[in-house]
């Protein structure tokens, strides 16, 4: 039974999509969205399963597996998908093109879950590509100019990322002569193309995870999508990149140079995201930058692990991912709820959002705090660890900024209330964001509870949050930050592209004029006229005769 569950988890959304070919099912398509991830949640809850090679006839021989880390990733994202799905069902009801949205949603969902379940390279790539490409449909959905631009940049970078991954995977598979991920990664350190492979993989996954400078699509795409889509994009889909790094970096063997570089890139991203984020005013954009920052942090964690050959880092990363997925998802959903809520009822909504937001900064007793706790040890005491600790402060700064932006977007009518279809999924996600990390934490070693509640630890977690909040308020009060465009660096790229594009267009070459009659033809026609003359013909007859005679008589 457990062996069949992963297949069910992937097959169910696809089956639902196929069922939508029938008109009656299609009429209720939106209602399917929260149902589709249920088997995946069940799979995650039933715990790790070993390698399941029940699909040797699929793709190039498909195999699935679920380890403990994968189960956490899968479970958390499945929860988010359920909540966001329910939210989407309410959000899009009766709107145009809802069916198209639902179709892309189901496809993205399948890919997003498949990433965590795939045990062979090709299935992984398939899932990853499915996520990347079909998410386009979610980003562009509203068909506004902004959505088109965001979606274009998204697909451009996503495709580049796909290509990098494809090449990396080819190199990996060719070197290992195996399509299963585990043996292929184990063989990577001895591959003749080791560095090229790593470069391509890091670029491909980093792009998805928003590693600077490959992050530019993220602050454009996440806000442009409809709110529930933003939630899964920022909550669930970026995790595919992190999970990819976790799966494909040779953490057991360790590679100090690569690890260090990755850690630095991650840290830089963590701070960069915040720095740009505080200049933004759209709450969704701020959240997107926050995602960039958070993923940078996890990347730094993985970098350290790679440098130190610490294969046990998965649990910490998973915990962070689980929390971030649910919290960030819930925050995005909150944006939609706030937008539908009047000033009169805003208070409790903002309060709940505030808890979620500051939890990302590591507010004690929240899931965020547990995540930071789990990451503390693997990050170590070095400069990376210390700098990573500082991100609690910066994250809080960004989150407070977010709350201020969020409050400004409330509905105009003071008495407006968000429909229940939006509020309930949001609350479920928010609750999950608080509770799931605790569940995971307590499932760990004994004494985990006491450790997490030790006053020293609590203080250690509290002061950065307080500091961050103070800085944020100070910034808001006294500093006037410049308003940077969404997607920062991308503007430079677009400008360059606009200038370069005309140069690439091939010049029009006029076809050469046809010459009426070519020289040879003319000459032959003249020759024919001469040969047709009677005396010429007679002389040729004589000439042929003499030549024949000569060749018979004189030549061998």
């Amino acid at each position: 039974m457990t062996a069949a569950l992963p297949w069910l988890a992937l097959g169910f959304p696809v089956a639902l999509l196929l069922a939508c070919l029938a008109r009656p099912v299609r009429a209720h398509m939106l209602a399917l969205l929260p149902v589709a991830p249920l088997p995946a949640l069940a799979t995650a809850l039933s715990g790790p399963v070993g390698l399941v090679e029940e699909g040797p006839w699929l793709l190039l021989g498909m195999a699935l597996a679920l380890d403990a880390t994968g189960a956490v990733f899968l479970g958390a994202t499945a929860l988010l998908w359920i909540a966001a799905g329910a939210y989407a069902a309410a959000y899009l009801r009766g709107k145009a093109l809802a069916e198209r949205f639902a179709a892309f949603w189901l496809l993205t969902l399948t890919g997003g879950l498949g990433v965590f379940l795939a045990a062979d390279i090709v299935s992984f790539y398939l899932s990853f590509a499915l996520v990347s490409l079909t998410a386009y449909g979610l980003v562009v959905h509203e068909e506004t100019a902004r959505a088109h631009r965001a979606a274009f940049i998204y697909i451009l970078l996503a495709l580049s990322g796909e290509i990098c991954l494809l090449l990396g995977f080819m190199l990996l598979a060719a070197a290992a002569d195996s399509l299963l991920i585990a043996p292929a990664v184990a063989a990577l350190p001895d591959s003749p193309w080791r560095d090229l492979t790593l470069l391509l993989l890091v670029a491909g996954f980093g792009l998805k995870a928003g590693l600077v400078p490959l992050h530019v699509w993220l602050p454009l795409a996440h806000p442009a999508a409809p709110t529930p889509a933003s939630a899964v994009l920022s909550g669930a889909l970026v995790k595919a990149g992190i999970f990819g790094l976790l799966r494909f970096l040779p953490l057991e063997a360790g590679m100090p140079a690569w690890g260090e570089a990755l850690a630095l890139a991650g840290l830089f991203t963590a701070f960069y995201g915040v720095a740009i984020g505080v200049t933004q005013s759209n709450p969704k954009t701020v959240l997107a930058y926050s995602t960039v920052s958070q993923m940078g942090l996890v990347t730094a964690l993985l970098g350290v692990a790679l440098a130190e050959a610490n294969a046990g880092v998965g649990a910490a990363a998973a915990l962070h991912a689980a929390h971030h997925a649910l919290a960030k998802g819930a925050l995005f959903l909150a944006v939609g709820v706030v937008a539908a809520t009047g000033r009169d009822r805003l208070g409790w909504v903002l309060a709940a959002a505030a808890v979620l937001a500051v939890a990302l900064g590591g507010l004690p007793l929240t899931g965020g705090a547990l995540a930071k706790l789990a990451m503390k040890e693997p990050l170590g005491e070095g400069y990376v660890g210390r700098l990573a600790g500082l991100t609690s402060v910066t994250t809080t700064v960004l989150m407070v900024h977010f709350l201020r932006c969020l409050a400004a977007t409330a509905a105009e009518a003071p008495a407006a209330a968000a429909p229940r279809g939006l509020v309930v999924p949001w609350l479920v996600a928010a609750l999950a964001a608080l509770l799931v990390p605790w569940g995971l934490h307590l499932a760990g070693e004994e004494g985990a509870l006491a450790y997490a509640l030790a006053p020293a630890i609590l203080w250690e977690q509290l002061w950065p949050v307080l500091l961050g909040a103070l800085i944020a308020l100070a910034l808001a009060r006294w500093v006037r930050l410049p308003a940077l465009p969404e997607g920062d660096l991308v503007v430079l790229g677009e400008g360059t592209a606009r200038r370069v594009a005309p140069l690439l267009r091939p010049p029009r070459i006029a076809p050469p004029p046809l010459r009426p009659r070519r020289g040879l033809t003319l000459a032959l026609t003249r020759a024919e006229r001469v040969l047709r003359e009677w005396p010429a013909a007679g002389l040729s007859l004589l000439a042929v005769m003499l030549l024949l005679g000569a060749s018979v008589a004189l030549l061998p």
Partner: protein
Amino acid sequence: MPPVAAPEAGFPWIVLAILLPLAGMVAALPLGRHARALALLLIPAGLVVALLLAAQVWREGEVTYALGGWTPPLGIALRADGFSAVMVVTTAVVLLGVALFAQSSFRAPPGEETRAALLFWALLLGLWGALNAAFLGNDLFNLYVALELLTLAAVPMASLEARAETLAAALRYLFFALAGSVLYLLGAVLLYGAYGTLDITLLAERAGPEPVTWAAAALMTAGLLAKTALFPLHLWLPPAHAGAPAAASAVLSALVVKASFFLVLRLWFDALPGVMTAAAGQLLAALGAGAILFGSVLALHQVRMKLLVAYSTVAQLGYLFLMVPLAGGGGAAQPWDAGAWSGGVLHAVSHAFAKAAMFLAAGLFLRAAGHDRIAELRGMGAALPMVTLAFGLAGLSLLGLPPSGGFIAKWLLLTTAMASGQWWWALVMFAGGLLAAGYVFRALTPLLARTETPVLPGRPVPRHQQWAVLGLALCSVALGVAPLMPFALLQVGRPEAAEEGIG
């Protein structure tokens, strides 16, 4: 002494093959309008005779027959080897097609003037007799008579439509052919003076390389080339062939020029193999190459379809002469012997079918449209689909593309050329094929063009004529699908020089 077939060795089909048409011609003259019926009766019968002769050759090997029981050098011998048999059968088949085609064009219903009809059928029978005589004769003087008879039948045929330009063309044809005949006769005289015989088999034994034979060979070959219209002696061919009525053009282009070619081969391979040199072979091939390139380019630029087809004949005749230096070349790697020789002969045969079909098709277009200007034949393909198909199929053979007799022939020639290291002749053949593609498709293009309103033939084209054209074209294709039988037949009595080469 060659074995002489005793009269009881087998029925003398060989004699019948010559006598039947000649007797028919004589009988036709007083018959007037009924000459057509006689010809239509005799031609199928002649085909049967030809096939029986071929079967005889196939079963018994080379057939010789001494006329009146006198053996050479005193008597005159007829001889049928595989080569002759193949040519005789080809002639009969082409004539059958042409006769079917012509039976409605050259008929004289009671009350109409009968001259053209009588003349055509009588000439056709005479021509046929002359052809068979040329293919079956084993005596150089006999062959001269056959050639002359051929000329005397062919020239009036070219001028059946007594317009000024056809008459002029016929006169040029006549003069050139006569000049050729005289040269040939002069050579024959020299040979007789030196060796006292004109029997090919005996000459082959007696003739050696000495000045008399050299001169004779040069004279006879030049004379025959003039009759074959090998470049640069082709001046008479395009106007004569293009000016004749379609049925006549078909016979002239398909068969008449082949007779003198046949004699060139007889002379070089059977009569004087020891005399000819490799250099002479290269010279002949060079002329052939010239014909291929020159004729093809000119065909490419013709405005009228019949002229295009006529120039294509000039070009295609060139291929025949490429076999001379290639014979005997590079047999080691090939599973066949005498590839080039067989290829050349097969080319002659497939060209006969194809060219007959093409001229007849051109004639039908001319009839339907009232003119044969290629560019103005737009839409004729839809009006006469079967004829267009036939034209295309015949073109296939000229291009040397499979499946067609032309392809097999070209293949044999090409492999020998490459195997014997004479790659330059292969290049010429390739160039010729490409040029042929150029002119064939240039002619096909307007035919297939779509017109605003469907084109209707100006004069109705009888169905049996269309079938005759298609039948001939299919023969050229069939030769490419099943060439084994003619190929094997060709090997009967094959001259040694064909395998060992000349010079």
